[in-house]
């Protein structure tokens, strides 16, 4: 027997096997009526499900972000603004109003300032754990990760705004080369953020606050130490070496961010 014939036999055999035997139903036209009955039931249930699903439309990340601006954004920006004013006020009070025009201090102040700006993230990153909201947040559709990203975006907007404002003011009021101003705002900021991102991805909730406070304290101490032992450090320009360093730090930040998103168990770490 050849292939084709055998396959035809097979097809015939396997096709007919699922029809209802003739002796169990009154006639050929009713062979499918049982099928029909059940199929109609399936269609009915599915229609209900589709309609139910329609009412379950969910918002996307951009709408979520907009909502976060309304709910959390203004709090973040308020804090950042207050920190900025506080910093200005404090320095003016301690070192006098002419400090801002004294070129010897400008770059150092910028360093401190950009580190402090980076620090404004801490209260918002730690809030969920401090007020025990993290479990409820984790069990939602957007969950802790996307909430974190939203917060970081909002913080970033505030950071960029303030840094630029300071940059423009310093550029207008002092005669320091703009490249240097950029360097002393950007590099410490990237360094601080890089470290913070690393800690977010690697420390669980219980240790994050202390760990990050320790890190920032270290950073500020470092700046202070360098001020006294190597003042030339604050007279640099934005050379290609420094540009490379900034680029390197940026890559590091992005790398840590990707780690948080794809590799770490961020939500789970918040629970400990």
């Amino acid at each position, binding site marked *: 027997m050849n292939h084709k014939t*055998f*396959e035809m036999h097979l*097809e015939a055999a*396997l096709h*007919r*096997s699922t029809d209802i035997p003739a002796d169990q139903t009154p006639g050929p036209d009713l062979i499918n009526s049982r099928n029909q009955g*059940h199929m109609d039931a*399936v*269609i009915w249930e599915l229609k209900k499900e589709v309609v139910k699903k*329609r009412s379950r439309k969910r918002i996307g990340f951009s709408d979520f972000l907009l909502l976060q601006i309304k709910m959390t954004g203004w709090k973040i920006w308020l804090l950042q603004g207050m920190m900025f004013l506080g910093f200005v006020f404090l320095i003016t009070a301690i070192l006098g109003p002419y400090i801002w025009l004294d070129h010897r201090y400008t770059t150092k102040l910028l360093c401190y300032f950009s580190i402090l700006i980076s620090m404004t993230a801490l209260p918002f990153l730690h809030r969920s754990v401090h007020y025990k909201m993290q479990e409820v947040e984790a069990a939602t559709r957007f969950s802790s990760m996307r909430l974190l990203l939203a917060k970081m975006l909002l913080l970033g907007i505030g950071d960029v705004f303030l840094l630029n404002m300071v940059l423009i003011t310093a550029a207008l009021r002092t005669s320091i080369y703009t490249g240097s101003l950029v360097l002393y705002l950007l590099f410490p900021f990237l360094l601080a953020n890089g470290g913070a991102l690393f800690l977010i991805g690697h420390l669980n909730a219980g240790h994050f606050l202390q760990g990050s406070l320790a890190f920032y304290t270290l950073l500020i101490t470092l700046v202070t130490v360098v001020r006294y032992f190597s003042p030339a450090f604050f007279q640099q320009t934005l050379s290609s070496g420094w540009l490379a360093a900034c680029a390197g730090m940026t890559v590091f930040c992005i790398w840590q961010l990707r780690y948080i998103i794809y590799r770490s168990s961020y939500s789970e770490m918040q629970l400990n």
Partner: protein
Amino acid sequence: MTREDELIHRIEQGDPDAVEELVKIYYPEILRYCLWHAPDRSLAEDAAQETFFKAVRYFNHYVHKGKFKAFLYQIAANTCVDMRRKRWLSDFSYEELALDFACAETGFEEIHSNLFLKQVVCRLPDDLREIVILRFGQDLTLKEIANIVGLPLRTVQSRLNSALKRLRKEFEKGGFYES
């Protein structure tokens, strides 16, 4: 294919009538598939219903462009495996299915050779049997079958060939020759 894509698009928008059309297209063959994998007809109907239900629910996991059939069959296969494991338990074995066919067909104008073939198919090892059912019981192309079982086309082809060889041998041993 474009008709199907249009229906799918409408279902995503929440159009219940599109669902009705899609079910009417696929229900008979999915039911037929489930009949091969369930102890009796009403359980097969349950499995078929569950399959469509899940398909609509988990629509977002479906990758577009003409692979809806494969998606549906995959769900049907998983559903039957799942139900067998959890609810039908020991009620089901392919041996019994073979015997069922033997009994059910009395009174039906069944050619003896067809009966024999069905039993032999039932006794094939799982992976070969599945491919034979999909190819000759469900009329799927080899490419579609490859998508469903998640194997390369070549493997599907070779398994089908070895299954056919076995079946032919059994068929000839049973004394059936070209009529």
